[in-house]
């Protein structure tokens, strides 16, 4: 019998959470454990047989379960103020209280942080390193601020250094074949995901499903099942009815609101639909190149949040064109200064909402409502 979308999702989720305290029943992973940031070259970890977990993603899960406020309070008491990235505050509260919707992840043997998304994550990982007293490896990706050949050399050296350190830690030797297969799996997952989101402008797709479905690209992009899952989803989406023509197409520029049941301000956007979002393309990494190292360099050095404003504007302009959006909701996210500026230079009616992707109390809903009404008026006039 052919495996279904739901079965594939369950398999991936079960596999990822099996050692979280709620399900592990005291059982510990046999492999070494790394806690990683979302844009870590996890293909290397696959090839070294190291388990990896994403604290940021788990913070989103905590917010979706409605438990984030208690976590903030705990984190604040421990010295991490609420002004800091909500992902970190939420997760810190969770591990201090040892409480979360799926328990807590298995303790790390190593922490790996990258700065190709923001500089806050490596700071946060420093706190984790103090707490668990385990090695911390920082991967520094210069992006397009320095010439390509220099950046390539620098990143390659760091990737090789990472491998050396992890080989020592795990006692395993890097399997080059698995590394290549993992990269290929990531590439296939991304291709399949891109196919899904290409249907966004015309198909009647549920925003919450889409924002939640990207989780697999984040936590298991180099697993074989992820591409299969996305291909299946794409087949199903192709059968969906077309969306209503009369709905106004809006581009969602920023993070999903993890605490919101629809992941965006659906109640304020009646008469509109989200036809595109930059967040759901952040993990569309470009693994171009001839060998594994070159592919990893391109994928992880040139992430959307690690490129210059000019390059970002170019990418964003294309995305907005593809989405056919006539207006944009731009999020001035308390937790992510790096995404603040994405919307600059975008020639589209837009409103900027001061918001947080985790902390539901941060938004001034009355103000947001007025801004959205104004946007709708602007769109109609134009």
């Amino acid at each position, binding site marked *: 019998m052919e495996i279904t979308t739901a079965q594939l999702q369950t398999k991936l989720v079960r596999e990822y959470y099996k050692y979280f305290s709620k399900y592990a029943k005291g059982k510990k992973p046999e492999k070494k454990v790394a806690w990683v940031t979302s844009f870590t070259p996890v293909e290397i970890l696959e090839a070294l047989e190291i388990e990896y977990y994403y604290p940021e993603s788990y913070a989103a899960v905590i917010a979706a379960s409605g438990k984030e406020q208690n976590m903030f309070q705990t984190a604040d008491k421990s010295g991490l103020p609420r*002004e800091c990235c909500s992902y970190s505050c939420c997760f810190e509260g969770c591990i201090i209280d040892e409480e979360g919707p799926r328990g807590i992840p298995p303790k790390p043997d190593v922490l790996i942080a990258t*700065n190709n998304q923001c500089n806050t994550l490596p700071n946060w990982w420093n706190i984790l390193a103090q707490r668990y007293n385990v090695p911390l490896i920082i991967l520094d990706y210069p992006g397009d601020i320095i010439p390509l050949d220099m950046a390539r050399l620098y990143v390659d050296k760091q990737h090789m250094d990472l491998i050396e350190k992890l080989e020592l830690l795990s006692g395993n030797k890097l399997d080059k074949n698995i590394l290549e297969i993992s990269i290929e799996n990531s590439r296939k997952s991304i291709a399949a995901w891109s196919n899904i989101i290409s249907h966004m402008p015309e198909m009647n797709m549920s925003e919450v499903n889409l924002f939640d479905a990207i989780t697999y690209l984040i936590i298991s992009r180099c697993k074989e099942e992820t591409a299969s899952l996305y291909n299946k989803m794409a087949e199903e989406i192709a059968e969906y009815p077309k969306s209503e023509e009369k709905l106004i197409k809006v581009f969602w520029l920023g993070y999903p609101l993890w605490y919101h049941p629809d992941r965006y301000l659906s109640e304020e956007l009646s008469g509109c639909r989200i036809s595109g979002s930059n967040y759901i393309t952040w993990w569309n990494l470009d693994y171009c190149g001839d060998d594994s190292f070159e592919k990893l360099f391109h994928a992880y050095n040139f992430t959307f949040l690690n490129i210059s404003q000019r390059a970002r504007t170019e990418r964003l302009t294309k995305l907005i064109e593809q989405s056919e959006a006539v207006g944009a909701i731009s999020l*001035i996210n308390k937790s992510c*200064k790096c995404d603040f500026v994405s919307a600059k230079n975008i020639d589209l009616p837009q409103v900027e909402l001061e918001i947080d992707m985790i902390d539901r109390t941060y938004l001034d809903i009355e103000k947001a409502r007025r801004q959205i009404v104004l946007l709708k008026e602007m769109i109609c006039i134009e």
Partner: protein
Amino acid sequence: MRILGLSSFVPEQICDVIKFSGYQSERTISNYCGYISDYLSQVIEDDSIDGAVYPKSCDSSRGITSYLDNSKKFLHQIHVPARQDEYAIEIFSESIKLYKESVEKFYDAVINENEINYRNEIICKRNTDIEAIYDNLEGIHYSVYLKLMHDLQKMPLNEQLDYLKNNRSESVINNGKKVFLIGSRVTDMSIIEGIEQSGMTVVGDNITESKRFYSQRNVEGIGDIYKKIANSILSNRLSPTQNNFCEILTNDIFEISRKNVQGVIFLTQKYCEPYDYLYSVYKKALDDMDIPILRISISGTTSVANNRLLLEAFSEMI
């Protein structure tokens, strides 16, 4: 050439820059570091400034170019590595070279290596002189020392040695409670005055314009000058943006213990996340040592009177 430089990662060896020391602005960018927001305003509004050089080292500094893009002034962002190993020295030396080339191109100038070497020598001498003053911190008023540092950093490099020679701080007997100061640049001197007037003596620090300005290793001898500069700057007391909290704690706690410090004052800028994160581990380490810590957030709206009250209460407590 009047380039406004942000942070101690901008290599002084290449050319003189005006070190950013604060500016009153409206701070219209939500949740953005107030210090960098003020820097942006000065670059945009101050006609006497024709360029800006800044690092890519924290979330707020990453986006600086986006805000200045239309300024038509010289703009250069320096990649500051988030590591401290030999790869970091190599890439940072390349970044310094790029900065030099970028200045030469924009200002149609030639900066030769002799000049860079000469400036490097002055910096080495100056840092040795500052270190001697710092080592005697208990015998001078900290506010006087800090003012000296602020004034010094506004001057062209070739005037700094003479300035230090001609402005010896008067010796005093400090009987105050010994405190250690850590944080980003002190843009509000009333806090330092408040510390002293509350009966406390700053006996050591780890702040941008003091320890993190002069403590770099003097790198002499032959070899690639850019690598020497990179090595030197990266050997400075670390900033939390360099992502090695462990080393920061080790160095600071060694000094705090050695000087029998009774309390630590931690200065942060509003929305300056690197220091916010550092604070949480710093606090834990000091709690374990039974050393009280006071955190003061410098924002455009913080009242002087409120800070005074906090400092007086802290002084009484220790």
